[in-house]
C-alpha cells in the first residue's frame, strides 16, 4: 500500500524537514517499502500475546534511583558543542510566541 505524497509531507512537516518534490516521491516509495516489510508481521496471530515494550519479564522490576544529587557538567562543558552561546545560555534564533 503506497504512502501518499500528502502523508509524506505531513510526516516531513512534523520532523521539520523540507523536501523537494523529487524527494517527496522518492521517500514515498522508500517509506512504503519499509512499511510493507514491517506489515508482514500482521500475518501472525498474536491475539494471545500481551504487548511487550520492554525486555523485562513479568514481575521483574528495576531498582529506582535514590533522590541524591550527583555532580553534573559545568556550564562550559555543557555548552562545549553549542553552535552559539550567550553567557552560560544556549543561544537560539528568536522564538516567536
Amino acid at each position, binding site marked *: 500500500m503506497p504512502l501518499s505524497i500528502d502523508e509524506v509531507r505531513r510526516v516531513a512537516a512534523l520532523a521539520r524537514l523540507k523536501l523537494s518534490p523529487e524527494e517527496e516521491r522518492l521517500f514515498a516509495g522508500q517509506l512504503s517499502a519499509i512499511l510493507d516489510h514491517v506489515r508482514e508481521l500482521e500475518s501472525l496471530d498474536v491475539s494471545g500475546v500481551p504487548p511487550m515494550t*520492554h525486555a*523485562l519479564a513479568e514481575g521483574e522490576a528495576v531498582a529506582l534511583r535514590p533522590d541524591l544529587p550527583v555532580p*553534573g557538567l559545568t556550564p562550559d562543558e555543557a555548552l562545549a558543542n553549542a553552535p552559539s552561546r550567550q553567557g*552560560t*545560555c*544556549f543561544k537560539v534564533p*528568536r522564538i516567536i*510566541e
Partner: protein
Amino acid sequence: MPVADFEVVLGLEVHAQLLTRTKIFCGCSTAFGAEPNSQVCPICLGMPGVLPALNAQVVEWAVKTGLALGCAVQPVSVFSRKNYFYPDLPKGYQISQFELPICLGGGLTITVDGQEKLIRLTRIHMEEDAGKNLHELAADGGSGVDLNRAGVPLLEIVSEPDLRSADEAVEYLKALRAILLALGVNDGNLEEGSFRCDANVSVMRRGATEYGTRAEIKNMNSFRFLKQAVDFEVRRQVALVEAGEPVVQETRLYDPVRGETRSMRSKEEAHDYRYFPEPDLPPVRVDEALLARVRASLPELPRARAARYQQVLGLPAQDAGVLVGDGALADFFDAALAARGGGAEAARKVANWTIGELSRLMNETGLPPPAWKLTPAGLAEVLALLDAGTVSGAGAKALVEELFRAGGDPGALVKSRGLAQVSDQGAIEAAVDAVLAASPADLERHRSGKKDLTGFFVGQVMKALKGQGNPGVVNALLKKKLGGLPPGEGR
C-alpha cells in the same frame, strides 16, 4: 446579561513541581535560581546514548498524592514519549505518561457558597519539565535557553469538566494547593510557576446536554488571574455563540495587563505528539508494600483539619479555611496553641494573630513558617504578656514583628525596647491633659457637639504614650475629661 442563559463547563490541568532534591531521571540538583546550565548533565541535556533512571521519591510522592486524592493507584504504569520540537526541549520529546498513568480517578471536595461539591479527577501522571527560554536576551533578538529546569519532576493533575464557574475553579485550585502543601510534595508557588494551571473552558446553553467547543487557557499565575481569565473567556464565548459564530478549539494566553485572553498564533498545525512507550524506562510498579508505607505516612488533610478546628476549637469556618490553606501555617498555629494552652478563647486569639499579623509578615517577606525567627513558643509568650496587661495590643504587635524579623526573648525585648504598657493613672492623665490643652479648637468642636472627636483624642493620647498606653485606662480617662459623648453629635 445573556451569560446567565449559559452554563460554564470547566476543567483544570495543574502542573505541580515536586520538591525532590534531584531531577526525575538524573541526579542533577533542582535548586532554584542557580546560574543557567550549571545543573545539567548528559541525561537532561539529551545527549546521545544516555539512559534515564527514575527517581524513587517521584514515584512515592505521586502515590502519596494519589492516595490523598482518593485515586486508584495503578500497580503498573508506563512512561511515554511525547514528541514535539521546541528549543527548551533538548531531546525533541518529553518523557511523560499517556495511556497508563500512575493514578486514575479520585476527586476532591470544595465548598462554594456553603455548598459542598465533589470535583472528580481524571488522572495524575508523572512527567519531566522543560527548560526555560529567556526571550530577547541577545541584542539581535535571539533567545537564551537555560536547561537547569529540564528534567525537574512534575505531577500533572487533571480534573474532569465538573467545575461550573470561575469561583468553583478558584476554590478547586486552592483546595488542591492546600493538599499538596500538607503532603509536603510541592511549594504551592503560583507566581514562580512551581504550581501552575491551565483551564479548559467551554459554554453551553442551559439545559443543553452536549458540551460546547473548548478553549485551553494558559498563563494564569494567581488565583485572581484564574478568575479574571475564566470570566473573560466565558463572556467571549457566549458572545460568539449568541452571534452564531463558532468557538474555535485553540490555546489562548491570558494577558493580565489587558485582562483578556488571546489566541496563541497557532503555529502548530493540529497537534500530533506521536506518543509511544518510552523504550528506555521499564514499567513503573507500585507494590502493596509501597502503598502501605505511603498510606501510613499520610498527614491529616486540610478538610479534616479545618473541620477539627471548627468543631473542637470553635474557630470560624473562614479562619479555619485560611489556616489549613497552608499546612505550615496550620502547623505553626497548632504548636503555638499547644504552648499557650487554654480552650476556645485562646485558640481564637492564637488564630487571629497567626492569620493576621503573621500572615502579613509572611507575605511581605516570603518566608515560610519554618524559616521564621519567631517560634510558636515565642508567640505564646507574647500573648501571655498581652493577656497579663504587661504589653498593649500595639506593643504586642511591635514585639511580634521584632521577633519575626530578628528573633530574641520576648520578656527581655519588652524591657530593652521599652514596650511595657503604661497603665499608671497619673502618667496617662498627664498625657490626656497635655493633648487636650494642645488642641483647644478640636476640644471646642467636640464639646459643642459639631463632631464626635473621641477617636481622634484617643489616637493623640496613644501617640503621646508611644502606643503603649493601656487602652482601657486611656478611654476611661478621656471619657471622664470630655464629659461623655457630646449631645446630638452631627456626622
